């Protein structure tokens, strides 16, 4: 076991900054590879060393596996941390690192490959007795086969096109009477959409929650589970708010899910940090969805309730250290909530709102943590995911952390771009969210019905008029003798105007 002296981060944004923090605490030099779009980023400022890897588009920079490994060797880095996204879950990148003699801070290429292939992963999980959504082993030859299988696993069931995707050729049957019609329609739709009318059948998990278990595995055969994260609040399959622990997971269920996650990891010889995602139904049955073979965006909520530093754990594992007794039977203390701050406008269909952050003031005070990759003056680039950062709060219980979240959001100031902050304000005012009564479809339903959108969005507050009027008056006083008032007011506002003004750096 040799401690690392230098680690190259093959990533950008807030996660690069997060990894640099862990490296600094361990006294390891942190190097970042940056694209042309990120030369002026917080990650470059925070790094000990920074090297250009290519132009802005990801494929020419953060996805250049060979170039990144070359860079690591050239600068004498012992290891590469891939962060999340980009190359983090590519088996061939893990393999390339191994072949070239650089430690990949993550699982082996074999484990990533096994878990990345849905069919293979399902086969291995069944063999390891990890519960998966029950389904027909292959396509169904006829309606009778479908009926026999549905009766065995119990209704409701869902019929899916074998060649499918995107919701086409999918039909839910809640009882026997609906099966024949569903079978006929699913086949017809599958045939029309994919030119292949083969369908299979699965148990339909109704209004499930997304619960995931954080695991760590070292190179000495130890695998531990570190409790769950509640990630049911999703907009179009994108997580928006994450919590730990979940209000519906009892200690007994936590133990069972933890054991299943550890079994899943062992089934593929998993090492380093990973996350086992499950669907949890209303009666406490859970089903394996997939294993994410990397550090998750939402890892801070687990850190807040366990007191552990998962990035430091990743580095120690990669250096060959054994997981110590502090990782055994970890107790969860208090409650943590993370919200993902995005440069997108919830009042305009969540359209990205790139541009320059003119001013930024992040919340502080008790129980507040900011993991962000920006500063006042940063540009939110069009080239990457529009995440600004993550705001995480901790409280002794969920009520306290909700109060802190509300308070922290009231302190947050991001000027110059639109953000999804109004979504969180609307959520905090929603009784179902406050009572943690939701499932993975809840947020989409709420947004579609307009219930959340409506929260406070209609009336223009008096203060906005006062502020604009004062700014206008002060400007006209400064410009006395300039253009007569009202001479150039015939244009109409369009969203583009704001973007244009911001790009030109227009000021008050």
């Amino acid at each position, binding site marked *: 076991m040799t401690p690392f002296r230098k680690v190259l981060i093959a990533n950008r944004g807030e996660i690069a900054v997060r990894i640099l923090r862990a490296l600094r605490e361990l006294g390891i030099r942190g190097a970042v590879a940056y694209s042309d779009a990120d030369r002026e980023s917080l990650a470059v400022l925070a790094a000990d060393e920074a090297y250009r890897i290519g132009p802005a588009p990801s494929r020419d920079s953060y996805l250049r596996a060979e170039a990144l490994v070359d860079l690591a060797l050239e600068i004498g880095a012992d290891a590469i941390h891939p962060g999340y996204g980009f190359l983090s879950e590519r088996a061939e990148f893990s393999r390339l690192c191994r072949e070239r003699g650089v430690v990949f801070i993550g699982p082996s290429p074999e484990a990533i490959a096994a878990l990345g292939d849905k069919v293979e992963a399902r086969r291995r999980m069944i063999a390891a007795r990890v519960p998966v959504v029950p389904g027909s082993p292959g396509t169904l030859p006829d309606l009778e086969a479908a009926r026999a299988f549905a009766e065995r696993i119990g209704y409701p069931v869902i019929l899916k096109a074998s060649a499918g995707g995107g919701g086409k050729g999918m039909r839910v049957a809640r009882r026997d009477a609906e099966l024949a019609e569903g079978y006929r329609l699913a086949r017809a739709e599958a045939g029309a959409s994919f030119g292949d009318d083969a369908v299979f059948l699965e148990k339909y998990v109704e209004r499930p929650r997304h619960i995931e278990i954080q695991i760590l595995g070292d190179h000495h055969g130890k695998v531990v589970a570190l409790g769950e994260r509640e990630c049911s609040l999703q907009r179009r399959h994108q997580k928006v708010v994450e919590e730990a622990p979940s209000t519906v997971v009892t200690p007994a269920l936590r133990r069972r899910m933890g054991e299943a996650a550890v079994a899943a990891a062992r089934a593929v010889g998993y090492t380093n940090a990973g996350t086992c995602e499950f669907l949890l139904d209303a009666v406490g049955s859970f089903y394996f969805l997939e294993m994410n073979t990397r550090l998750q965006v939402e890892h801070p909520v687990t850190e807040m309730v366990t007191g552990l530093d998962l990035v430091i754990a990743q580095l120690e594992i990669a250096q060959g250290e054994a997981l110590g007794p502090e990782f055994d039977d970890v107790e969860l203390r208090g409650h943590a909530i993370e919200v993902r701050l995005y440069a997108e406008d919830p009042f*305009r*269909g*969540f*359209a*990205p*709102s*790139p541009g320059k952050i*003119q*001013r930024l003031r992040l919340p502080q005070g008790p129980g507040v943590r900011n993991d962000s990759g920006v500063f006042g003056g940063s540009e939110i680039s*069009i*080239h*990457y*995911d*529009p995440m600004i950062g993550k705001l995480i709060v901790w409280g002794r219980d969920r009520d306290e952390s909700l109060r802190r979240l509300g308070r922290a*959001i*009231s302190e*947050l*100031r991001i*000027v*110059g771009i639109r*953000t999804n902050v*109004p979504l969180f*304000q609307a959520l905090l005012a929603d009784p179902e969210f406050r009572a943690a009564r939701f499932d993975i479809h809840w947020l989409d339903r709420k947004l579609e019905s307009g219930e959340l959108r409506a929260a406070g*969005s209609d009336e*223009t*507050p*008096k*203060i*906005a*008029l*006062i*502020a*604009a*009027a*004062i*700014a*206008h*008056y002060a400007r*006209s*006083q400064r410009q006395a003798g300039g253009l007569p*008032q*009202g001479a*150039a*007011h*015939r*244009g*109409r*506002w*369009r*969203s*583009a*105007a*704001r*973007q*244009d*003004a*911001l790009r030109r750096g*227009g*000021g*008050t």
Partner: protein
Amino acid sequence: MQLVSRVDGKTERLSVERRQGKYVVEIGGVSHEVDTRALGPWVLSLLVEGESHEAAVVRLRDGVYSVDWRGRSFVVELVDPLTHLAEVSRGDAGKPGKRIVKAYMPGRVVEVRVAAGDRVEAGQPLVVLEAMKMQNEIQAESSGVVARVFVAAGEAVEGGDPLVEID
């Protein structure tokens, strides 16, 4: 100074004056005394009868301001009352008329959901644009009839390029 504010077609009469170092803003007949400090080029600290407010005000163009307050953004248009009256009598104040929906950023057109002659409602998706690795619906900001579609699926667009004209 007498002003008319226009926000999303709603109008309000305002007056602003400076009196003994403070601003006095009258809205709908109610007068507010406001102690104001500019904190840098963007941010105003406002004490409105003792209530502390922080607002970021960005001038978009003459008479049009974006105001950020408590995490939300508002676009406030201010005109003098005579201009407003003239526009009202011509019938085009606060009414959109012909508007061109533009791409807000560079990207690729994935899908065009409307054709010339279609009647659209505010909020209805017009075009699906892929940018920043995400697909986004460009929605109509107001109802009307599609006069022209400038793009087709598969085309690359630059920020500011016209997509659809709504009459």
